[in-house]
């Protein structure tokens, strides 16, 4: 039972990280990026290119990945968001889906179809507590999630950039009128969103292997987690992620492993029926 909890929380932490990247972009431009999972996949492969192909120290590969992902995030914004800005949101969302497919096939061409592993930045024997095994990498995942959540919270609530971001999200035109560098703010949001996905990819690669199609399912789970937690709510995304990880793991163990993926969507529907704005969604007014 305790082992299931540890493994469920570990899986849920990955979902939460994907969701945090998704929310950073959503909270700035009110667009759901359905290619977030594919950005995660790119992060994993860039990390592997550094740490495995070029045999760089893992820490260096992480830094290179973060820089590359920031650049990719900005390119993504220029290609996907800017040309369709102001159009109906579903057009942008469809474009993110299309971009996800493009990225997946691009990865297939560049890195090939073979699944590959990446070394973890942490080493050491797993902890064994009363029969429960916790690997060093699982501990690293929990710590990384906690640090990122804290940093993101501080960034959005305690820094000038966070305030600019919130202003941009609330009313883009007014923000521009009062002199907020809207484009730069959006670019930073896309860059950070991509970096978070890249970090999730780097955390996933040592335990789940990296392959070009790995992002689809993880991206979708990140979306489900965001909905469960209440779209736009960071603590909600983290709690939603951990909750989903536990539900999937316990469901697979005690109900049936055949429906593991279905549990995510059943829970999402149930939560939406009971709490239409998600578990921690805030009531919001609409402009009329």
């Amino acid at each position, binding site marked *: 039972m305790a*082992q*299931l909890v540890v*493994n469920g929380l570990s*899986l849920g932490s990955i979902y939460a990280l994907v969701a945090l990247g998704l929310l950073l972009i959503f909270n700035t431009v009110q667009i759901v990026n359905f290619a977030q999972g594919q950005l995660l996949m790119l992060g994993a492969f860039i990390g592997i290119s550094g740490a495995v192909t070029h045999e760089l120290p893992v820490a260096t590969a992480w830094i290179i990945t973060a820089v590359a992902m920031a650049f990719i995030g900005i390119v993504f914004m220029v290609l996907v968001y800017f040309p369709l800005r102001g159009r109906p949101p579903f057009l942008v969302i469809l474009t993110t889906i299309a971009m996800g497919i493009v990225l*997946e*096939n691009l990865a*297939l061409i560049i890195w*090939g*179809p*073979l*699944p*590959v*592993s990446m070394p973890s930045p942490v080493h050491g024997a*797993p902890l064994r507590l009363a029969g429960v*095994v916790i*690997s060093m990498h699982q501990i690293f995942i929990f710590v990384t999630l906690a640090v990122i959540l804290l940093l993101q919270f501080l960034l959005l609530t305690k820094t000038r950039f966070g305030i600019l971001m919130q202003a941009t999200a609330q009313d883009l035109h007014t923000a521009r009128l009062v002199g907020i560098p809207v484009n730069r703010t959006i670019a930073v949001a896309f860059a950070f969103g991509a970096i978070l996905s890249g970090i999730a990819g780097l955390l*996933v690669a040592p*335990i*789940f*292997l990296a*392959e*070009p*199609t*790995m992002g*689809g*399912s*993880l991206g979708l789970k990140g979306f489900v987690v965001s909905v469960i937690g209440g779209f736009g709510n960071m603590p909600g995304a983290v709690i939603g992620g951990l909750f989903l990880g536990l539900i*999937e*793991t*316990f469901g*697979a*163990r005690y109900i049936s*492993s*055949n429906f*593991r*993926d279905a549990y995510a969507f059943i829970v999402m529907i149930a939560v939406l029926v009971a709490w239409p704005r998600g578990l921690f969604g805030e009531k919001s007014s609409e402009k009329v």
Partner: protein
Amino acid sequence: MRQNSFKNVVLSAAVVCLSSGVARESKADVASCGSPIPFGLTTALTGNLALLGIQARNGVEFAVDEINASGGIAGKKLVLTTEDTGASSTDALNAMNRIIESKPLIIFGSMISPHVFAQTEGVNKSETPFLVGATNAKVTAQGSKWLFRTHVHDGQLADLIPEYLVKSLGKTKPGIMAVADDYGLGASKGIQAALTKLKATPAAVTSYAPSDKDMSAQLLEIKDKGADSLILFGRPADVTLVIKQMNDLGIKLTTIGNASMVAQTTLTNLSAAEANGGYAIGGMIPQTSPDTKILDWAKRVQEKYKVPADNFTVSYYDTVYMLKSIIEKVGCDKPAIRDALAATKSWKGMLIDYQADAQGDLAHTLGIYRNKGKTPELTGPIKENGF
């Protein structure tokens, strides 16, 4: 003496006339082929089945390139048209329609059974020999006289894996874990039925979605229910994850599975300790061959495609050469090629002999492997009952 000489002359003349006649007839048959000779291939080159589909492309393309480099078939080059099926059966059907429009002499289908099921009716209408590696046992039970399979199928594995586990390894309470798709679930059912015949009961029957990455819950269930072994049926990527997670959780069970257990893709991503001791029964792989020519072939395939050759690569490669020998005998008449395929007896491929049964299955020999560290060792070939 003179009579004998006369007899000899007459006999010699008859032999010369007969042999030249045969030669002329054979030459005429190959001469009936257009130039170049068109082959078609539909397989998954993109999407989440690309790792599998690419093996079919590699095997067929490598053989076609070799044949063309050595002068083609009776001087006529082969031209291969390939269409990507992606991961969906609808796209597979569309890909097949495009291939049929190009009027190939032969069509190679993929190893992905749902795609082949979707394509078979169209191929039947086009009356074109259709050679596949699809592993669902029912693929050749569709009643198509144009469809042939040159790779072993799940029905054979589902019988042989439990038999080996129970009779040779002495394990009677295995946990079963299979990928939840046509490939894995079909095999899982067959394995359960075979275990029942052997009077063995699985401790737990579990599965995972093809996109699943965390199988720890299933492994813990198998452990908690007291399994003495694990039958694992999946693709190389997920088999790798299961073995890794088993190791992480400290679960030690004798594990036997399909050829994914010994695939290079799997072994590359496992440590020697993780891989060691795993058993596999499946299509024959080239890496364990003692023949240096075969090892050299595997090396050249890997150099060209950056993907290690596996049991499917071998099967598709063999299929092209089998067709070459048939075309050299019967020319480019599609019904004649079909009849020759159906009459195949002991055609020697790279690793196994092919022999057609009444349903159109040509592969009946499998390999039993055991990993010694990260190196698979061939324990022995095993033949399907009746072959």
